[in-house]
């Protein structure tokens, strides 16, 4: 297909899953993308632009010019061009439309990777090969002669190290030499033999002692040692998330609000005069004449304190730990260990990854359910995540408010949600039609994550919270204050209050926070603070809030990913489960 003259020409990055395409993409375009050490991190394609250097030598079949602005596409990882999953179909379509294909190959795993390379050559498009993870070949006892490989494939081959940027300039320069692909063999059945010949000539294997990481890798997928390691990793992760979060709150966030911002807000307060509309929106209620950051509920007070001093520290510490585990390569091991359990929930082991992402935020978690093959699995996973996996913002508020009453209450909430997660999964497995296929995944090597990409990823995720959540929180607090001022909530509360009190044992004022949960769960839990609830009521209200309804962002992403019908089914499950469990907690506690 000929594209219009004006459109930028296009490079498509193709390769097996988890070979580092996204890192190469970032190096070429400067576009920041989430990169992890497990197959399927990029479930969709990303596009960016590369401006060729001014000393780029034109030439080759793609005939790019110096200073030319070229579109670069990071395609989802595929093992072959035979269309199988939706992700593969996307990748194949992208490949056919390319002006130049950059085939990213894992140098530590040449033979397997070359299968796709041979298929790409059969497309007869200009192509170069990036021999990525070049720095790791030594560790695994592999030595490859890139020139030999280039002769064998009839295509330029450039060793690269995506994480350090080594070889990226040479890769760009090689675009000038990109020759149209020539099939290495005409016979599809002969591809593996052809690969065997090329690999036999160009790669030498040396015996190498198992490194510490390889031994650890083996131990973490063995039944007994694996479970011990998993227990240690999860306990350690929790301890670090909590420790770092509390340290930031105690030493940085709270002192900032108490010592620096509070005096400022008192001046604003006396300037505006308590009792005026603008005062109750900006500062909120004064508690015994004082600003209480947790309870005053003004835009400047609680509106800033909740996202910045209560939630943000935990968002940071959670994503620090999660990003480390992702980049280290631990998560696929967890998938192997928990595969058996996840099958009972109608899923398979890999579904643990979206569920863990859900402990951060449901939106990327539900997007990540695309790594699951069947629609049934995606529905079950999305429902479990929105009902029983509390996001980091919600958890931060649970730590802050419920933790202040005693950590045993926090424990009750977590235990309840975990039981709901298991129980609901068992029920969905029995009742949702469709099929759930078996696990088949590649387990990546362990890698000590280089710090810069890790820091960039944490920064991106924290920035995402600031950009997307904080405005909603501020608008939410403002609107809530306005509605309170207009006394509109009272009428709604009167309507549902009897049921709320009878079933959940909660006072009528707690209805509003539960409704606000649709907007943001953290704000909603924050609204429970001034109500003077007993510890038991707080546990019931928080649990119901966590389960009752997805927040608006989650609502939108389920709608987009699964459609109206599944969204409504999912919400019906949530509401029913929340009322049942909330009622049960009210009776038991």
């Amino acid at each position, binding site marked *: 297909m000929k594209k219009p003259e004006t459109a930028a020409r296009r490079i498509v990055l193709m390769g097996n899953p988890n070979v580092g395409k996204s890192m190469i993409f970032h190096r070429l375009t400067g576009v920041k993308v989430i990169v992890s050490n497990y197959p399927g991190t990029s479930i969709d394609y990303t596009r960016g632009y590369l401006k060729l250097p001014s000393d780029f030598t034109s030439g080759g079949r793609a005939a790019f010019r110096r200073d030319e602005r070229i579109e670069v596409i990071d395609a989802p990882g595929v*093992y*072959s061009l035979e269309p199988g999953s939706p992700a593969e179909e996307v990748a194949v379509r992208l490949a056919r439309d390319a002006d130049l294909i950059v085939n990213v190959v894992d140098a530590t795993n040449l033979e*397997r990777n070359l299968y796709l390379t041979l298929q790409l050559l059969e497309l007869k498009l200009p192509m170069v090969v990036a021999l990525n993870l070049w720095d790791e070949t030594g560790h695994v006892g592999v030595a490859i002669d890139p020139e030999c490989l280039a002769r064998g494939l009839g295509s330029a081959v450039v060793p690269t190290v995506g994480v350090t940027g080594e070889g990226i300039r040479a890769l760009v320069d090689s675009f000038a030499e990109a020759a149209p692909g020539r099939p290495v063999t005409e016979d599809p059945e002969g591809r593996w033999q052809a690969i065997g010949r090329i690999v036999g000539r160009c790669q030498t294997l040396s015996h190498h002692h198992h490194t510490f990481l390889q031994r650890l890798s*083996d131990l973490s997928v063995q039944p007994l040692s694996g479970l011990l390691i998993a227990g240690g990793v999860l306990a350690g992760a929790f301890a670090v998330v909590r420790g770092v979060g509390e340290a930031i709150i105690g030493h940085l966030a709270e002192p900032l609000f108490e010592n620096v911002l509070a005096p400022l807000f008192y001046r604003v307060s006396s300037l505006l005069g308590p009792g005026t509309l603008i005062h109750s929106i900006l500062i909120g209620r004064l508690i015994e004449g004082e600003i209480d950051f947790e309870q005053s509920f003004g835009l400047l007070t609680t509106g800033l304190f909740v996202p910045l001093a209560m939630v943000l520290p935990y968002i940071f510490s959670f994503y620090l730990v999660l990003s480390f585990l992702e980049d280290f390569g631990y998560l696929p091991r967890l998938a*192997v260990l928990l*595969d*058996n359990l996840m099958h009972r929930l109608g899923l398979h082991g890999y579904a643990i990854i979206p569920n863990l992402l859900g402990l951060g935020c449901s939106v990327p978690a539900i997007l990540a359910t695309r790594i699951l093959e069947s629609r049934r699995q995606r529905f079950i996973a999305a429902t479990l995540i929105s009902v029983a996996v509390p996001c980091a913002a919600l958890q931060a508020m649970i730590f802050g408010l419920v933790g202040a009453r005693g950590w045993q209450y926090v424990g009750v909430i977590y235990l309840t949600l975990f039981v709901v997660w298991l129980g609901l999964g068992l029920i969905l497995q029995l009742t949702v039609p469709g099929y759930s296929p078996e696990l*088949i995944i590649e*387990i990546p090597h362990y890698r000590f994550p280089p710090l810069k990409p890790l820091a960039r990823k944490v920064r991106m995720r924290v920035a995402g919270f600031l950009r997307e959540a904080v405005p909603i929180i501020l608008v939410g607090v403002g609107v809530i204050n306005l509605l309170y001022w207009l006394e509109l909530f009272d009428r709604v509360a009167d309507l549902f209050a009897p049921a709320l009190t009878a079933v959940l044992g909660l006072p009528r004022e707690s209805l509003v926070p539960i409704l606000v949960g649709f907007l943001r769960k953290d704000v909603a839990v924050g609204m429970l603070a001034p109500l003077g609830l007993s510890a038991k009521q707080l546990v019931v209200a928080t649990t119901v809030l966590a389960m009752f309804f997805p927040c608006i962002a989650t609502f939108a992403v389920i709608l987009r990913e699964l459609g109206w019908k599944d969204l409504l089914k999912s919400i019906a499950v949530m509401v029913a489960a929340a009322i049942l469990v909330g009622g049960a907690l009210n009776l038991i506690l």
Partner: protein
Amino acid sequence: MNPAPPLVSLLDMKTGRAGRIVEVRSGRGLARRLETMGLRTGSRCVKISGMPLGGPVVVQLGGTRIALGRGMARKVMVEEAKA
């Protein structure tokens, strides 16, 4: 005494044993998928682990480790190397 070495599935193979895949007893779709991941007739493999209670099997193929469900592992037949 035993002229033809007995075949064993990846599922029944003992952890730590090595061998060569001689047959994938499945439909074309699955066989293709396994093949593109490197699990194909002729590949040398080492069984890294098998999880109990219906859990998956982990197998090393060249530089790759693949975890596959037991239903799939049952269909991959291996000729074990002599211990």
